[in-house]
């Protein structure tokens, strides 16, 4: 896997596309955590998830990319927008979105990024994965889910049911706890 890997620079065509999508994802993620408007944060989250779905496509994980578009962009962001609406958030810019310890938070985040990037670059500098289309299509993924991973799949369906019932119980007001 690492024997005839090309050099790190210049990047090939798919790598350039992936790096551009990654830059879009990282930039919009930065806007998510720094913007002063709640609704804009949710919309930048859409951009970030969309760029990540494009990155999955470049990495030949097609099925994961479409699931990402369907569930994250389609469902999770809509849920978050519902939450913003139901908590009566102000539409315009609001001042108190950042807490007072944001400099400590920035310090921790920069330290995390430095440690992670250093470790990862040292560990995987020579790793090279040749891209072959068709590895992540729906057919091989479905075959391996329903053959090898069928028990976690069923456990996950029970988890989803439990989360559904839990959300209903939490959000109904006429169900009282035991006195």
């Amino acid at each position, binding site marked *: 896997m690492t024997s005839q890997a090309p050099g790190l620079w210049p990047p090939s065509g798919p790598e350039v596309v992936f790096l551009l999508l990654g830059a879009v994802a990282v930039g919009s993620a930065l806007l998510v*955590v720094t913007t002063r408007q709640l609704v804009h944060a949710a919309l930048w989250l859409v951009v970030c998830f969309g760029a990540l779905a494009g990155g999955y496509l470049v990495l030949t994980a097609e099925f*994961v990319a479409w699931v*990402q578009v369907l569930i*994250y962009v389609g469902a999770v962001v809509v849920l*978050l927008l519902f939450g913003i609406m139901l908590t*009566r958030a102000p539409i315009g810019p609001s001042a108190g979105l950042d807490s007072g310890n*944001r400099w400590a938070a920035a310090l921790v985040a920069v330290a995390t990024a430095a440690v992670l*990037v250093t470790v990862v670059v040292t560990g995987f500098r020579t790793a090279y994965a040749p891209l072959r289309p068709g590895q992540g299509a729906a057919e091989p*993924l479905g075959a391996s889910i329903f053959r*090898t991973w069928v028990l976690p799949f069923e456990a996950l369906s029970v988890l989803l049911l439990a989360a559904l019932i839990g959300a209903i119980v939490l959000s109904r007001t006429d169900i009282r706890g035991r006195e």
Partner: protein
Amino acid sequence: MHVVYPVVVSALLFSIGVYGVLARRNAILVLMSVELMLNAVNLNLVAFDVWLRDRLHGGQVLTLFVIVIAAAEVGLGLAIVLAVFRTRRTVDVDRLRALAEVVRAPDSGRPDGEGAS
């Protein structure tokens, strides 16, 4: 595709999520930052699955599982945030400092729970 590129992007996304969780006050923004961190993990899983060419597709299947768990998590998290908003009229996580309800004893009038272990 060099493995370094997706892995570095995912490390940056994860630390941005860490910053968001630590610095934001609105509970919904904290949930969004948690979603960013989960997405960083997903990108890592897909990149290593492509690199190792797993015959069972463990990385991509685990990515699908993480996406499902994230959907369940955000649903439950929003239900909790809405319940907190109903009782406290705020979703500001800095102001939610009470760890228990203050129960007043019926006759003495001072807060119960000082002697409770």
